[in-house]
């Protein structure tokens, strides 16, 4: 007996009891659906996190000076030597001073915003554009000019949307001249990347209440040299501080690796939990199949009496359970996909299930059919035809 015959027979007995078949499938449907939705949502949100980190730049290396041993300091000029020392590895060294709640005033309008002190290379490492005017340049930083570049939120709040270039603002009571406006990147909302004021790091000494720059964004020449550049910075800082606790150097790429490791773990964990329901579904199939074998003892006896071999009976029952579980799998995948898309829309992420996730879910459900169908099929194939013929 060939496979297509066995398949036809299996389909016949499946379709002859539709409600039972559906109920048997239900465990698999729910299990597969849960796996698809959970994995897709985790992957979708991971994708979003990775995207936002990636937007920081694959070349970026974050350097933080902890300042535990305050007797030793490192100046910006010293840090800038990195570029001369490793011209093949390091392209920009951008200081990063931030005051997150500075009072910015114009006439009677005032708002609290975050002020960043940096240099002209800021534009190269942060994916920003100038909308009006110019960014701060090297003359601004050298001469400690009190110039400022503002985001669109500031323009809207303090200038009512008018061009502010050339006008003065007060930052913590120090007068700064607006020289440019940054192109909006996030709808110009409060607290977003458009709610910023950027000044030369040299001009913000009183603003930031310190001379010491604790944070730098270092830019490697290419994304391939990030790791060597990270090592170079560590070596450079060690030569200066002689203490590894004085600095933290992390490349965005390695942060990404760490994050993806965590989210992979999460995906596996959630899939595992959902997988338990799949196994429960499989046990449901086995249960129903065992009952079905008992119920169909006479049928099996007749089939054997007219010449069915063990393998034929085995194949028929095994195919039945595989078809039930795979059909459950397919329905589960469809429902899971719909569920993921709906949930993705609600959460504002792209949670459309990846193809390989669907494939694995399908293969897993088919495997459950084989695994849990085996015992009932084996039982059926080993029935003694004489006993089976005399069964009720």
């Amino acid at each position: 007996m060939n496979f297509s015959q066995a398949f036809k027979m299996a389909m016949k007995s499946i379709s002859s009891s539709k409600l039972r078949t559906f109920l048997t499938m239900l465990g698999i449907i729910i299990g597969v659906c849960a796996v698809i939705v959970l994995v897709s949502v985790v992957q979708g949100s991971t994708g979003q996190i990775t995207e936002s980190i990636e937007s920081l730049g694959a070349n970026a290396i974050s350097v933080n000076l902890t300042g535990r041993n305050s007797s030793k300091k490192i100046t910006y000029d010293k840090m800038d030597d990195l570029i001369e020392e490793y011209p093949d590895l390091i392209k920009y060294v951008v200081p990063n001073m931030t005051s997150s709640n500075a009072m910015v005033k114009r006439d009677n309008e005032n708002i609290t915003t975050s002020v960043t002190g940096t240099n002209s290379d800021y534009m190269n490492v942060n994916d920003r554009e100038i909308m009006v005017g110019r960014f701060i340049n090297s003359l601004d930083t050298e001469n400690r000019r009190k110039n400022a570049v503002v985001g669109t939120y500031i323009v809207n709040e303090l200038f009512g949307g008018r061009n502010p270039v050339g006008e003065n603002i007060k930052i913590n009571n120090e007068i700064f001249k607006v020289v440019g406006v940054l192109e909006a990147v996030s709808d110009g909302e409060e607290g977003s990347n458009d709610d910023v004021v950027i000044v030369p790091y040299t001009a913000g000494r009183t603003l930031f209440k310190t001379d010491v720059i604790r944070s730098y964004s270092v830019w490697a020449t290419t994304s391939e040299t990030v790791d060597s550049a990270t090592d170079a910075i560590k070596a450079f800082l060690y030569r200066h501080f002689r203490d590894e606790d004085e600095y933290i150097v992390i490349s965005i790429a390695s942060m990404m690796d760490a994050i993806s490791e965590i989210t992979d773990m999460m995906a596996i964990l959630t899939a595992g939990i959902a997988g338990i329901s799949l196994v429960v579904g499989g046990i449901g199939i086995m249960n129903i199949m065992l009952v079905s074998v008992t119920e169909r003892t006479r049928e099996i006896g007749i089939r054997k009496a007219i010449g069915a071999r063990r393998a034929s009976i085995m194949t028929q029952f095994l195919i039945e359970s595989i078809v039930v579980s795979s059909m459950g799998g397919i329905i589960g995948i469809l429902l899971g996909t719909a569920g993921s898309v709906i949930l993705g829309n609600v959460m504002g992420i792209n949670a459309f299930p990846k193809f390989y996730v669907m494939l694995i879910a399908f293969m897993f459900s088919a495997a459950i059919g084989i695994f849990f169908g085996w015992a009932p099929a084996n039982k059926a194939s080993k029935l003694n035809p004489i006993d089976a013929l005399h069964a009720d």
Partner: protein
Amino acid sequence: MSEKLISGAEYMIDIRNIKKIYKMGENEVRALDGIDLKIKPNEFVAIIGPSGSGKSTLMNMIGCLDTPTEGDFYIDGNMASKLKDDEQAFIRNKKVGFIFQQYNLLSKLTVEENVELPLIYAGVPQSKRKEMVKTALERVEMYDRRHHKPSELSGGQQQRTSIARALAARPPIILADEPTGALDSKTGAEVLKMLKELHSEGKTVVLITHDNKIAHEADRIVRIMDGKIVFDSAVDGDKSEVNV
């Protein structure tokens, strides 16, 4: 498993001193206690005996559904004792067509599909199957009702379908177990007539029954009692007692 079966042996069924002994706790039940039975091709034999006589066990042996505890038997020259499940299934499929008292059709399949089943298990290709099913169904005048389910048929029609199923794979032996037991006398007679026709067409027909009257339709009667053959003779009076 040997896929080759021989045919054209001197005896279609050759049973040599077989015993079937069941152990039920301390007790031994000798369902068959030394049976010798030789049936030539194209014989029409009735095996008769009361219930518990061992005739069902003997039928199971002839039908290759069971193996003896002791002794050997041959079906059309093929050793059929001491076989594994699948080897038995193979001989059953090729050599024996079963007709049961309760018809034993599969209720979810149509008449046509029921008759096709032994051919599927025999591995006959689909194109050839159609033809063989048609021949068998026409033989029992059931071709018109080939798309019906067994539940839509009368008892006689169901039994005719089961005869068609027994014939489909063209086995040399037809093994009928109380084929008229569930039928009224008129349809029972029709079924018996059909068995006689099959015999006249060259089949070896073995009829199992407890009814003397029905047994006399056969050419030879074998009576079983307590697992032994107590009477074996041709119906036309040419009696030859053996193994009393």
